[in-house]
């Protein structure tokens, strides 16, 4: 699968070269745009862990994305207002430190995925799709009507959170942080896909009965994958909120779930790098089509339809061939 490797390298290089060039050419917005693509790619990788590797079609990943965003929003909100988050039974202060925020986002995403997954994975197929969708809606309505953190107005954070030794308000430095996180997540996913867990999870996707017959329980595999997936997506949510310095319930809406799924499909389901290509392509489409017409959603819809109907396997399927490599 040489072509796939080449494509992986090309995408990573492009995502790195573009902002570097933009930084020299004084086009800061291009950096912001690429950062956005990088963060959404991380969200896509998160979903792909459940969807591509485990075959779990979740239409509720906005919940984890949004929770990650709110983890950032709430911690930073308390830090910027100098109010403690909780005084009893133990004092918890807010924070503006990115590493701490990431950790909280990851744990929050994982816990939520564990709970939602434990309930939803009792079902399968279409039930699973619809239940994850409904759980996502539950979080959405909760966030809208919960007044403490802005409800529908969301939370604004005036200054981006800090990372030791960096000025995160500088677009290129924040990009570097996100790009590094992307590389780490990619590396981790790539290893996991080839690990014993990855092998067994893939088997559970293709044939759950087989997994039982060799003495393993598919439910545990699915739940683990779903939890990891939620953790990664939560991390992406925290970064996304930091990019915008803002978090609101719209991160939790079901359209967000749909869009994250679109990244995965556009790139290629089950490919480690698929969501990266998909997110980059989506941002490109959004940017160019949006300039063409007020009604650009029609074109976006048509392109999506074309990909699903005629280009199965997404961008990677087109360029690197249909088969997903497993070793």
């Amino acid at each position, binding site marked *: 699968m040489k072509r796939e490797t080449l494509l992986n390298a090309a995408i990573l290089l492009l995502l790195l070269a573009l902002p570097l060039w933009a930084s020299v050419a004084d086009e800061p917005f291009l950096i912001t745009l690429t950062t956005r693509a990088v963060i959404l790619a991380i969200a896509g990788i998160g979903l792909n862990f459940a969807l591509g590797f485990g075959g779990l079609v979740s239409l509720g990943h906005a919940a984890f994305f949004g929770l990650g965003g709110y983890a950032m929003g709430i911690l930073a909100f308390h830090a910027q207002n100098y109010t403690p988050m909780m005084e009893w039974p133990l004092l918890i202060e807010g924070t503006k430190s990115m590493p701490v925020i990431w950790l909280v986002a990851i744990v929050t995403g994982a816990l939520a995925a564990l709970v939602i997954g434990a309930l939803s994975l009792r079902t399968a197929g279409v039930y699973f799709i619809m239940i994850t969708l409904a759980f996502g809606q539950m979080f959405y309505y909760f966030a809208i009507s919960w007044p403490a953190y802005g409800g529908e107005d969301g939370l604004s954070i005036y200054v981006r959170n800090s990372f030791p030794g960096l000025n995160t308000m500088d677009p290129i430095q924040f990009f570097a942080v996100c790009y590094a996180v992307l590389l780490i997540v990619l590396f981790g996913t790539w290893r996991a896909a080839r690990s*014993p867990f990855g092998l067994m999870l893939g088997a559970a996707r293709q044939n759950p009965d087989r997994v039982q017959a060799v003495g393993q329980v598919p439910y545990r595999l699915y739940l683990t994958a779903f939890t990891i997936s939620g953790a990664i997506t939560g991390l992406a949510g925290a970064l996304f909120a930091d990019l915008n310095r803002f978090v609101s319930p719209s991160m939790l809406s079901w359209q967000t779930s749909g869009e994250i799924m679109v990244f995965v499909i556009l790139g290629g389901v089950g490919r480690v790098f698929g969501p990266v290509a998909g997110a980059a392509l989506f941002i490109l489409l959004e940017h160019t089509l949006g300039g063409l017409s007020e009604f650009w959603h029609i074109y976006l819809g048509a392109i999506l339809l074309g990909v699903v109907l005629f280009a199965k396997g997404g961008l990677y399927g087109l360029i690197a061939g249909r088969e997903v490599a497993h070793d």
Partner: protein
Amino acid sequence: MTDPVLDVRGISKSFGGLKASDAIDLDLRPGEIHALIGPNGAGKSTLIAQIAGGLAPDSGAVHFAGRDVTALSTAARARLGLARTFQISMLAMEYTVLQNAMLGALGHRGGVFRFVRSVMRDHDLVARAEAALEQVGLQDFRAFRTAELSHGQRRQLEVAVALTLDPKAFVMDEPMAGLGAEGSQQLVGVLDRLRQQAPILLVEHDMDAVFALADRISVLVYGRIIASGTVEDIRNDPEVRRAYLGEEA
């Protein structure tokens, strides 16, 4: 006589008014191939599901390797060493032949929840899988994708996966189904050698294969075992001839 590895004691299962299993007793002893035959709709699949897990009997018990496994899940029974092959191939079609065999080895050995080290570098697992492939004669196809295999080769792979479980007994659901004469013959050879490793409960329609392999035969009709004995006993049993072989002949 040694203790049976698998011992089915008086299990019954009804669906609505239909008795799919009616107080069935069945055992499997070390070193033997015990064939279970019966016409379509006799309740063979229901019985297999109760033995291998997935379907709980209304009454009765299944003992395996000296313990009562009636309440255990399919996965738990598999971990105890009850290796099952399926009537329809249950393989991970996107994986290579070697990877499928490794699933069995991994599932049996444990350590599934490891996320970092590449599974293909786990030499212990690879060696176990390759040994099983060699035993069924698939060693030259290890890098093939399973979807590319012929029907007969998939059957062999099923058996290989079962082998990696280091089983105490095999339960095989129509392994010959859909195989040509040549394929059947090859598989009969494989199974014949296998019985030394672990006994086989063989559900099969192919009478030539059954008569060639079986040490004992039980005949299931309408959820009941109507006869059980050696090949000769069954061939000469009048009730079997009437109820079953008569129809087939």
